[in-house]
């Protein structure tokens, strides 16, 4: 009985991955709702569970691909692999309304650029301080400080090692959680009141889940404004990370 079930899962790897990830997201949603009262975004908890499972998979198999190294969860490797990951990221560009974005005007662009460059510099500098002194690692960790999507996309494009990639995602993840929990607390200090301020926030705070959850906990009306700019943020980061920022870092550290 159990053998037949295991065989079915083994032979349908991607389908198994959909079911497993669905279960993780469901569990994360429940934890978010009942344990954190919506304060910590469900998607952030789901990613933490994913990373925890990756840790568990890594300790079980001794491999470098986390849960995907366990034959039963091999489909996770395809679902979260470079192909489908980039496919889903490109699809989010469809949600950007260029007209709405244009209304943000110059200040939105300035916030977007600052929101990409400043966290990058900080992240890359700290990576350097901890001994990750090669351009590829510095860029990947710096990009991770932009968002947890920009980090791995940049890392994959410039050929970072898997542990630096995970570190980059972890950096983006810690940042996302900080933004989610910190935004309602710091809303007064940040002067989060108007659509314009929400767009500035979306550009500078970066991560989409962090921005949308943080704004939702502050003022539901502001969510689309912040998220709109934050959507551009990932695109800009993915464009600048493996190109301009990588070259600049390379020029600096050789």
């Amino acid at each position, binding site marked *: 009985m159990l053998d037949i079930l295991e065989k079915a899962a083994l032979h349908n790897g991607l389908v198994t991955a959909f079911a497993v990830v669905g279960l993780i*997201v469901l569990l994360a949603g429940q934890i978010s709702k009942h344990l954190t009262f919506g304060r910590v975004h469900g998607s952030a908890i789901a990613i933490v569970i994913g990373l925890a499972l990756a840790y568990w998979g890594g300790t079980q198999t001794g491999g470098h691909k*986390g849960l995907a190294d366990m034959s039963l969860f091999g489909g996770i490797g395809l679902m979260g692999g470079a192909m489908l990951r980039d496919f889903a990221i490109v699809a989010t560009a*469809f949600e950007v309304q*260029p007209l709405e974005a244009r209304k943000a005007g110059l200040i939105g662009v300035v916030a977007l650029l600052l929101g990409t460059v400043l966290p990058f510099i900080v992240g890359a500098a700290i990576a350097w301080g901890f001994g990750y002194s090669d351009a590829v690692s510095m860029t990947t960790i710096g990009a*991770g400080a932009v968002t947890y999507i920009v980090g791995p996309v940049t890392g994959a494009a410039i050929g970072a090692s*898997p542990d630096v990639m995970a570190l980059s995602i972890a950096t983006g993840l810690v940042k996302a959680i900080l933004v989610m929990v910190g935004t309602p607390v710091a809303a007064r200090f*940040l002067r989060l009141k108007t659509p314009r*301020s929400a767009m500035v926030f979306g550009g500078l705070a970066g991560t989409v889940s962090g921005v949308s959850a943080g704004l939702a906990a502050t003022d539901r009306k502001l969510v689309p404004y912040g998220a709109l700019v934050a959507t551009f943020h990932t695109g800009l980061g993915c464009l600048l990370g493996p190109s301009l920022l990588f070259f600049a870092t390379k020029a600096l550290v050789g």
Partner: protein
Amino acid sequence: MIIYGTALLAACHLLGIFIGDLLGQLLGVKTNVGGVGIAMLLLMAARLYMLQHNKLPKLTELGVEYWGAMYIPVVVAMAAQQDMVSALRGGPVAVLSAVAAVAVCAAVIALINRAEALSPESPDAAQLHNPLVAAQE
């Protein structure tokens, strides 16, 4: 048809990656340069063009929006295959970079927003653009 949307997404994806690879070769690096970002720009341009020419039926949109809505689950799957065991050895780097990045950005947000002249304007109507991404995402 829903496949038109997904095919459009796929075409933009491939073209973006192709241009990114080409750009990488032109710049003399062995890596893809901004392919995903270029693909996003292509998709936005394609969407604008199709909207203006009335060639974007709801079903075509859904073919793209489904994958946009799958973005978080795919990222969860991506997280589940990371090399966490090696990553945890560099723990302080992640925490310190994140905390410092957030602190610097918060200071700049506060600075920019303090410069805004406060006028009592109400946010005009904006909707979530992907019907498949519920408000919780």
